[in-house]
């Protein structure tokens, strides 16, 4: 059975952006060949949607600091994202998809479709986000 592995990233946006998260995940996948391709791109899609939301909506004007931890266990992959942005005023209840010609509003629905757990907590003036996907057996 594969051991638990933990990967961390500290970023400041700007200048960091979601490509910084992609680059971190490249090293995560390189160290975890047991993760299926489907699990990889499903989890990466959900995490990039989360990071995009944090960067886009939580910046009060002075940039944003994020600490990201990705943990792989025998049966789950989990991301915890802690950011210094404004209090998350985002409902975590999955919404229906917007009209097909709308150009935005799909991110949260995509996250919910691709992971099994989505949690948010505000403490110590920080936003704490957590998503978890159960791995294919």
């Amino acid at each position: 059975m594969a051991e638990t592995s933990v990967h961390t990233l500290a970023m400041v946006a700007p200048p960091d952006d979601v490509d910084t998260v992609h680059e971190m995940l490249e090293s995560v996948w390189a160290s975890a060949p047991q993760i299926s391709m489907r699990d990889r791109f499903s989890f990466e899609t959900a995490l990039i949607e989360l990071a995009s939301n944090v960067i886009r909506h939580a910046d009060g004007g002075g940039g944003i600091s994020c600490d990201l931890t990705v943990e792989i266990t025998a049966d789950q992959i989990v991301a915890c994202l802690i950011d210094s942005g404004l209090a998350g005023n985002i409902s975590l209840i999955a919404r229906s998809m917007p009209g097909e010609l709308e150009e935005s509003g799909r991110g949260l629905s995509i996250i919910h479709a691709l992971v099994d757990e989505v949690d948010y907590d505000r403490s110590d003036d920080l936003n704490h986000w957590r998503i978890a996907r159960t791995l294919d057996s």
Partner: protein
Amino acid sequence: MDITVKDLGDGVAVLHLDGRLNMVTASGLRDQVGTAVAGGRNRIAVDLTKIEFIDSSGLGALINGLKTARQAGGDLRIASPNEQVKLVLQLTNMERLLTAYDDAETAFIDG
């Protein structure tokens, strides 16, 4: 993400994309489609062969391009998406609006 534009004539332009289509690069695609349409090419084929990843921001740019092309009397079609792109299209119920063609160069062969 890199974008290379190829003019096929008859109002058709192929945009070859290479990299990730996300919140960082979405505006570049919107701009390129806008430039092509303003230049009289209102039938836009977007080649996704070398797109390794798309998110909802990138999807929004494709929808924006589709609307821009249609407002000019044309259309936007996508070609050869990978499994991750297909997943995002499926989850967002966009497979009908953005039907995937096999080859961007022939996406408008039927008109």
